[in-house]
């Protein structure tokens, strides 16, 4: 069954091409506007663009997935929300807010058999510049090679994941632990 993928960019394109499911599922790739700015210089227009509008979009998309009867919902975010990032405070705030919103949705919609989970990818998948934001971890990445989130997202979109909800699967090769 085809999975509806919301979002733009390389991550969304990859998931749109390859994620399948045996039930009704929706994947929401965090609609972040990734832009670095020191908080001392941030403007109200930037707060609106980097924080407010992405949040409004993701809330609306979760509501749409619910109204369309999706049984599996996955929100894909960068680990930047968990780690924080210098000059990415507003982006980081939106990413973490989306990740925790998943938990609220999971708590409310669980009685309807709907699961809601997050998949967290390395910051660079969303265009966050690690040279600016600072390292995600003090330890090096555990695994080598390219990270492919398709299998992880596909699992969370499947009937097999019926008892997994409110979780964050970090899919970054073992960088954030």
């Amino acid at each position, binding site marked *: 069954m085809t999975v509806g993928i919301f979002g733009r960019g390389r991550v969304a394109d990859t998931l749109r091409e390859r994620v399948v499911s045996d039930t009704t599922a929706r994947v929401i790739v965090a609609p972040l506007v990734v832009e670095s700015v020191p908080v001392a210089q941030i403007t109200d227009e930037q707060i609106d663009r980097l924080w407010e509008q992405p949040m409004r979009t993701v809330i609306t998309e979760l509501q749409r997935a619910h*109204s369309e009867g999706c049984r599996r919902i996955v929100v894909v975010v960068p680990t930047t929300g*968990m780690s*924080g990032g*210098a000059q990415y405070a507003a982006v980081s705030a939106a990413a973490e807010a989306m*990740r925790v919103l*998943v938990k609220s949705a999971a708590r*409310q919609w669980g009685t309807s058999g709907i699961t809601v989970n997050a998949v967290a990818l390395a910051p660079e998948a969303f265009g966050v510049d690690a040279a600016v934001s600072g390292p995600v971890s003090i330890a090096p990445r555990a695994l080598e090679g390219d990270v492919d989130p398709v299998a992880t997202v596909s699992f969370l979109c499947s009937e097999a994941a019926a008892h997994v909800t409110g979780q964050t699967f970090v899919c970054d090769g073992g960088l954030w632990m």
Partner: protein
Amino acid sequence: MSARGTSLDGRVAIVTGAGQGVGEGIARRLAQHGAIVVVAARRAATGEPVAEAIRSEGGRAVCIETDVTKGVSIAACVARAVEEFGRLDIVVHNAFTGAIPHRLEEAVLDKHWKGMSLTAGWASLQCAREAHPHLAAASRRPRGEGAGRYVLITSPSGVEGSANIPLYSPAKAAQRAIAKSLAREWGPDGINVNCIAPVAASPSLLTAFDRNPALQQAIEARTPLGRVGDITDDIGSVALFLAGDDSSYVTGQTIVCDGGSFLGL
């Protein structure tokens, strides 16, 4: 008590939402330890009595009417504090509004999200923006004479989600991410940024207890320490630690102050 960190003599602190509840408790505790406290409250009718109570106990405090949903009001509060007292060392952003129980699928953004977004996401960034040069200046003072501190009041729900007020959790989660980001960004300036996630006997919680006595029993039963926190003795004291010199090597952290109820960090 340690000899080093408990004195805030001469330091200037702004506490938003200090007209009642957790903000009031924090304002009182900081003032008890020598800070000049700006009670930043939306209404003077609530903020002025807190400032007066602090003054009556021998402390120094003024009330500045501040609406944290408006950036210009935050900027005016910071400017007046610096103009009046010559410095700003500590900002505790506690003010928060808009938490209304709702179903996520039925939530109306302007009713169930806007207020929380403005007071948590927007105001946390705007307070930071306006305070930064003054907090950096405080950190340039000789050790023991000042240090920039930014403290955000979040919630355990900002970590674990909420079934009752689902959009409350992302608003509070945002503050934790902002604290971590600012800890990285402002570390070179010597400014420490941390969060407190409290559960305390605020007026809203006490009202809920009056309406539903079983709620108090339920909260106390699930809390290892068996009681609800006091706004001054329990929460204010953690804020004092984060505002003072004893926390000089602590930044980017969230201290959950809820009697051990939430152990998920």
